[in-house]
C-alpha cells in the first residue's frame, strides 16, 4: 500500500516511541528487581537505597515566613526522607510507580503500532481504529483507577511514617486525572474518524 516515503517527522516520532517503549520495559524490569532486592535486604532497594524520599504536603503555617509579596497557594509539596526504611515502606513507595509505568507502556505500545502503520503508508486500516479505542480506554478508565490505587498506597505509606517532629505534613488526596481522561475522549473520537477513513479507503480502492 505504501506509495511514498514517510516524512522525517514520522520516522523520528517512531524512533522516539521505540526508545520510550523499550526504556519503559527496561525500567520496569529494574523496578521489579529493585523490589526483590528490597525485600531480601529488609528495606534497602536498588532504586531507593537506604533513604526513602516520600512525597508529602506541608502545612504552609509550618513553612516559615515568606516575603510579604509571596504566599503559598495550598499546601506546598515537600519530600520527607526516611532513613533505613522498612520493607513495608519500601514496598508501598515502589508500588506507587508500577501503575503509572503500566499505563505508560500500554499507551506507548499502542502508539508504536499506530506509528508503524503511518510509516508504512497504511494508516487507514481497521487495526488503528481498534488501537485508538484501546488507548481511549486505557486513559479514561486506567488513569483514574491507577490514581485511586496510588492514593490508597500513599495514605498507607503516610500512616506508616515516623512522626514529623511537630511539623504538620499530609499526603496528597485523590484527584481525577482530567488531562488523561480528556486525552482518552479525544482518542475515542479519533477512533471513529479512523473507522470512517477506513471505510472511505475501501471505497476508493474499489473505485475504477
Amino acid at each position, binding site marked *: 500500500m505504501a506509495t511514498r516515503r514517510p516524512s522525517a517527522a514520522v520516522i523520528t516520532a517512531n524512533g522516539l516511541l521505540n526508545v520510550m517503549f523499550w526504556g519503559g520495559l527496561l525500567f520496569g524490569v529494574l523496578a521489579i528487581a529493585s523490589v526483590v532486592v528490597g525485600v531480601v535486604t529488609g528495606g534497602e532497594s536498588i532504586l531507593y537505597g537506604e533513604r526513602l524520599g516520600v512525597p508529602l504536603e506541608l502545612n504552609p503555617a509550618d513553612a516559615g515566613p515568606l516575603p510579604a509579596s509571596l504566599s503559598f497557594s495550598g499546601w506546598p509539596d515537600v519530600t520527607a526522607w526516611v532513613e533505613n526504611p522498612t520493607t513495608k515502606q519500601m514496598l508501598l513507595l515502589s508500588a506507587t510507580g508500577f501503575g503509572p509505568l503500566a499505563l505508560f507502556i500500554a499507551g506507548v505500545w499502542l502508539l508504536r503500532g499506530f506509528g508503524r502503520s503511518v510509516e508504512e503508508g497504511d494508516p487507514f486500516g481497521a487495526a488503528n481504529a481498534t488501537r485508538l479505542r484501546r488507548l481511549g480506554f486505557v486513559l479514561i478508565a486506567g488513569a483514574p483507577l491507577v490514581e485511586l490505587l496510588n492514593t490508597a498506597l500513599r495514605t498507607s505509606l503516610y500512616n506508616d511514617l515516623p512522626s514529623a517532629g511537630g511539623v504538620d505534613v499530609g499526603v496528597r488526596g485523590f484527584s481525577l486525572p482530567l488531562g488523561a481522561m480528556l486525552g482518552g475522549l479525544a482518542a475515542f473520537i479519533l477512533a471513529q474518524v479512523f473507522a470512517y477513513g477506513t471505510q472511505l479507503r*475501501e471505497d476508493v480502492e*474499489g*473505485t*475504477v
Partner: protein
Amino acid sequence: MAGDHRIAVHLDRLLAERDMTLTELAERVDVTVVNLSILKNGRARAIRFSTLTAICEVLDCQPGDLLSHTA
C-alpha cells in the same frame, strides 16, 4: 459480484466481440490493467464517469451495454 450491489459488468463480452484484450483496452483508456481486471471481475465498488466515458468511447458502446442490473 462483490459488495452490496447487483450490477453486472459485461466487459468480457464486449472485449471478445471486438477482439480486444484487457491490456489493449487499459492502454487506450489510461486505466491500469489491475483496475480494469477489478471491474471485469465484478469486484469494483464504483466507477468514475471519466472511466466509463473512456471505455464507452474506445469500445464504441453505451453504458447500458457495459453495465446491467440483475434482479
